[in-house]
Each structure stands twice: as C-alpha cells, then as structure tokens.
C-alpha cells in the first residue's frame, strides 16, 4: 500500500532521515519506534507532505506522492495526527469533527453560497458522518464542549477524531498515547483496534513500548534517521542493536 524508497531529508548539514526504506501492507498496524530525535516525526512529515524530501520516493497505491501538497495527499487517503494536541480550539468537539469532514462528501464553494439542494444533502451527510465518528470514539457526552476546555485525554482523542473525519485509508498516529494515564491508554488501544477492524491501515509512532508490542503486527526501529531493525514485535524486542539504541552500550558489555 505504502512504499518508501531511499527517503532522505537534510536539514542544513544534519541528515534527519537517510536512505530510509519501508513498506506498509493494507490492513496492517505498523509501529515506528526509536529514541527521541531519531527522525520518526520527520518521516511522518515527509509522508504527509508537510516537509519535502531531499531524496527518495514515496509511493501510495503505486502512485508517486513524493513532494505533493499535504491536502492532496489527504485526498488520496493518507491522514496524520499530531504529536502536540492539535485541534480547532474555539470550536466545540462536534464542530471540530464536522468542519474536518471536508473531503467526504466534498462540496463546491458556489453550491454552498447558493445553498442548493445538493449542498444541503451533503451537509446532512457530513453531520451524520461527524456524529458517527464522535460516537465511535466515545466523545458523545462532550460533543458540545469547547475543545480547548477539555482534559488532555479527550484532546488527544479529538486529534484522532479529526483525522478519522477525512476517512483515511492509511492513518498515521503520532504518539497517540502521550501523557495519558493507564486507563486512557487502554481505552485508546481499544479504539485503535476498532479503527483497524473497519479496514484502516495504521502507522504508529509511540514511546509506550508495552502498548506498541501489544498492538503492532510489525515494528520498524530507527535511530539517527536510519533503520536499524524491522520485524515482529518479539524479534525486535530481542534485537541487539535495538537494545543498544535504547539503553546505550555499557562499558562492560563491550
């Protein structure tokens, strides 16, 4: 589904990502892990067009999306969430999701201004879609609250709700569990499993290793912008390079 070949990004003299290859198959949940500053978020930014690569190629469903604009990549079906809590602060939860239902159904500017019958039908569809997503993520009872006033855990979920309203085929989650308590982590994992069960492919960046090991089919490990390991969770867990990258090399171990 997604094919990344030789992806490289330099920021000045620093290679944030270099010669990175990865494949994602339809229906998988793939984990992308690595120490802080390893280049995980840069890879997200490169895939979704927020940052353009210095070298390399990104193919989605056999089509080249390298260097395309973020909005057209979203229209093709790749949508990401953000590491920080990103949403529309002065809108209610429902308005956040309703506004984000922009691509499906898509309506034109002029039919909206002239308030045509077709436009009103699409608005109704978008509202229903938004309500479905809100119910799906259990945000029903806060749907009329302003997003900026909600606790952190809900705000993380709003981020996911916004991404889901673009009906992604490939969903990129950037540390969805960051700052959550154990309860919220478990709930969110249930949601991620539900998202996958409706056929959405997921690429997950996360520092919570227990969660990653539990939920991912496959894990890719990077350090200093390079891939150092790839495989099933159990394989990766035992990989010497991975343990080194996370724990460092002890004097006596060497």
């Amino acid at each position, binding site marked *: 589904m997604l094919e990344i070949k030789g992806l490289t990004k330099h920021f000045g003299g620093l290679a944030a990502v270099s010669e990175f290859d990865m494949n994602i198959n339809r229906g998988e949940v793939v984990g992308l892990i690595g120490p802080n500053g390893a280049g995980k978020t840069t890879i997200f930014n490169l895939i979704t067009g927020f940052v353009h690569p210095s070298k390399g190629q990104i193919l989605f469903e056999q089509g080249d999306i390298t260097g395309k604009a*973020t909005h057209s990549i979203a229209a093709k079906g790749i*949508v990401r969430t953000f590491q920080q809590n990103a949403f*529309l602060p002065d*809108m209610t939860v429902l308005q956040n999701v309703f*506004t*984000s239902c922009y691509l499906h159904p898509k309506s034109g500017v002029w039919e*909206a201004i002239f308030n045509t019958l077709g436009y009103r039908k699409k608005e109704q569809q978008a509202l229903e879609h938004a309500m479905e997503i809100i119910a799906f993520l259990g945000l029903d009872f806060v749907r009329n609250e302003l997003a900026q006033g909600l606790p952190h855990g809900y705000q993380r979920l709003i981020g996911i709700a916004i*991404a889901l309203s*673009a009906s992604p085929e490939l969903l990129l989650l950037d540390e969805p569990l960051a700052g959550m308590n154990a309860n919220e982590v478990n709930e969110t994992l249930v949601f991620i499993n539900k998202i996958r069960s409706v056929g959405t492919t997921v690429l997950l960046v996360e520092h919570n290793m227990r969660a990653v090991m539990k939920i991912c089919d496959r894990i890719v490990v990077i350090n200093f912008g390079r891939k150092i390991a790839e495989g099933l969770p159990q394989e990766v867990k035992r990989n010497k390079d991975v343990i080194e990258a996370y724990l460092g090399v002890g004097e006596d171990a060497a």
Partner: protein
Amino acid sequence: MSKVAKSVKPLSCTVLILLFFSIPLFTKEAYLFHILITAGINIILATSLRTIATTGQMSLAHAGFMAIGAYTSALLVKKLDLSFWAALPLGGIAAALIALLVGYPFVRVKRVYFAMLTLFLGAVIRLIIMEWRGLTRGSSGLLDIPPPNPILIPGSLSIVFDAKIPYYYLILFLVLITFLFLYRIDSSRVGRTLLAIQQDDFVAESVGINVTNSKVFAWCVGCFFAGIAGSFYAHFIKTLTPDSFGVLQAIYVVVYMVVGGRRRIYGAILGAFVLTLLPEFFRILKEYQPFVFVGILLIITFFLPGGLIDLPKLGVSLVRRLKGPSVSHA
C-alpha cells in the same frame, strides 16, 4: 427557546430592512441621507474586510482596493462611455483581479507580516494613482464623474440620480447583496473552512483543505466588494483624489470591524454604522476623529473585547452581578 431565537433573527432583520427602506417616507433631509449613504459604503468595506480576517489575516490595503474599484469604474465611464451599471461590477472585478495577482505570494506570509505587506500594497496602489497622471490626473484629481445612468422603464419607472435618495436606495440594495453573499459564506461550509484555517492551518491542511486556495479566495472576495464600494463612491462623490484612499482610511475600516465585533458579520455592520454616525452628531468628534477612534478602540478592547455585539451579554452579566447577593440570600 432556541426555536424562538431562530425565528427572531430573520424577523428582526426584515423589520430592520423595512425600516431603512421607509426612512425616505418620513424625511427628505439631504444631510441625513449623505451620512446614511456613507455608512452604507463603510458597511460594505467592514463586512468584506471581515471575510478576509476570518482566515486570520488582517488587510490594511482595503482603502487601496476601494481606490482600484473607484478609479476603474470612473475611468471606464468617463473615457469609454461605458454605462455605470457595467462599470460597477467591473470595478469590483478589477479589484479582485489585482488581489488574485498578488494573492498567492501574499497569503504565504502570516499574521502581522501579512498586515505589513498589505500596508505597503495600499501605499503602492496610492502611489501608482498619484504618479500615473496621464490616466488618473494624479493629485489634482479626477473630476466630474458622471452619476449612474438613469433607470428608465417606459410607462412605469424612472429613477434619475439627481438627489441623495436614489443613491440611498442603490447603496441599500448593494449592502443587501453584499450581506447576503458574505452571510452565506459565513454560515456555510466555506466559512467553517476559513475559520478552521484561522484556528490551526496545519490541522486544516491535514484533513484535505487547500489552505492556500481558501485564503486567496477569501482575500479576492473581500477585495471584490471593496472595489464595488469604491465604484459606488466614485459616482456618488463625483470627485476622486488619491488622498481619499490613504492608510488612515484603511485603518478606519479595521476599527469599524473590531469595534463592532469581528466574530459575527452583524458586528462589522454595527461597527461601521455606529462609527460613521457618531462623529456626525458630535461636531467635535469629527475634528478629532483619530483621537476619538483610538479612545473608542481602547475602551472596547478593555471592556468589550468581543465588540459592540457583546453589549447584551455584558448587560446580562452586569445585572446578574447586581442581583447576585440577593439571590444567594434567598
């Protein structure tokens, strides 16, 4: 409750419109109509500026785009003998085209830097008008701009623009059109999209909104109506000089919008209306207009940050605060 509120809004709008349409039945005072017409022009400017501001970008070139509309329309009528009724939309289109021309590089620049760019753009437009003497007669001004061609329907209707009242009806009509168009933008998905861009453009872009195109759209629509206002102004005042379109004029439009309240389109209308009428009733306010506007702006930002449209809300909370202790006693 909300159902009542829903029917109150269109009702009060209709009453207000009827009221304004019927003013000429009660008085023919030319001075009053002159002020009301000026208020109408300012309402179009403030509401259209607000559409640009919805995306989070403040334009200080609105007087400049008004000038483009004014000069385009006046020159088309004077030099090419075009009818005013064709020149009016062309004035708006000219402004929108110039806006489109600079739009794509401009909207890449955000917040205060965008405001600075537009400030320079306004100055450049004025400078071009000043220096292109062969066309615009520079600072000596464009004089004797003809009034709109009379509307003649044989046997039933003849409207000649020889007094204030026909102009008054014309601007009323233009304000209504502008309001309907901008209101539809505001209350539809288009407005939601613009608001999303203002609140977080990365989130907007990530769900598939073409942020650049949307910003350029809002910018061009805003400038189009500034051009329309300019065209009307040219054929109403009949004399154009570059001095009528300076920086101060552009800032006044911003003040109308902020004082009235930028959250809703009614705010921009109210602000433009109140601030146009106020100085006319107190002579001294007119002489020291910049001072007065600064004062009003300060008062509003401190006590009514949401603008004049929040006045009822403020009133309610004041009453509550006064009643507060007695309620807790009971």
